[in-house]
């Protein structure tokens, strides 16, 4: 039991995908491709770049934090409203890529983002429920 509250706020999804990291990297970083599987966006793979993901239910303010082509990508998710960080890690396997997404919240180094978190969270949850209902 390392860090209970932090663990309660971490989401990890990991999947082996039968494509090379370079191809997955394109889907993770090219705006028109991101549109197709995640959300509309004005992403650019440049550290500190601020961008938005937008959907019918609203938008998420983000900022690029780390870019290492074909290996790792991380961005803040929700900035001042939500305060989590999404990190993608691509590891080549013999037959494809192990793709890992980790979303973490409330780390000590993110305190500033949380000061303004009060308004954003509940709205996000309400919206998210609608999204999840649609995705099924």
């Amino acid at each position: 039991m390392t860090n209970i509250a932090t663990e309660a706020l971490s989401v990890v999804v990991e999947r082996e995908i039968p494509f090379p990291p370079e191809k997955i990297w394109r889907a993770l970083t090219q705006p028109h491709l991101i549109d197709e599987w995640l959300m509309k966006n004005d992403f650019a793979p440049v550290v500190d770049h601020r961008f938005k993901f937008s959907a019918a239910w609203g938008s998420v303010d983000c900022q690029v934090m780390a870019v290492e082509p074909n290996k790792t990508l991380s961005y803040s998710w929700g900035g001042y409203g939500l305060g989590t960080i999404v990190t993608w890690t691509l590891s080549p396997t013999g037959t494809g890529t192990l793709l890992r997404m980790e979303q973490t919240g409330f780390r000590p180094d993110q305190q500033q983002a949380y000061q303004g978190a009060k308004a954003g969270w509940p709205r996000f949850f309400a919206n998210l429920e609608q999204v999840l209902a649609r995705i099924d």
Partner: protein
Amino acid sequence: MPSAYDVLFRTLADPTRRALFERLCRQGEQTVGALTARSGVSQPAVSKHLGVLKRAGLVRDRHHGRQTHYSAQFGALAPLIDWTSQMAGFWQGRFDRLEDLLKRMDQ
């Protein structure tokens, strides 16, 4: 009127408060004195943080003689666990769509 999420996230956003809560989770019930001894902050500050945790439902206090004992209330974390399972569902769905896209992409 702040929502339950509001209160929980705000309460746990403070690193000192989160550390106190986590110590109570790991080590069970403790007095204010014992918590202060290893917290690096003053007893009034610890008491104040415990008060905030108590109002958020994250800890419970019990008076015994002149001492107040605090214990963690795991159940209060439920909304956060709901959050993680919701987000996990969201990302699983997006992974599915990503895989579909990759199949359609050239090379």
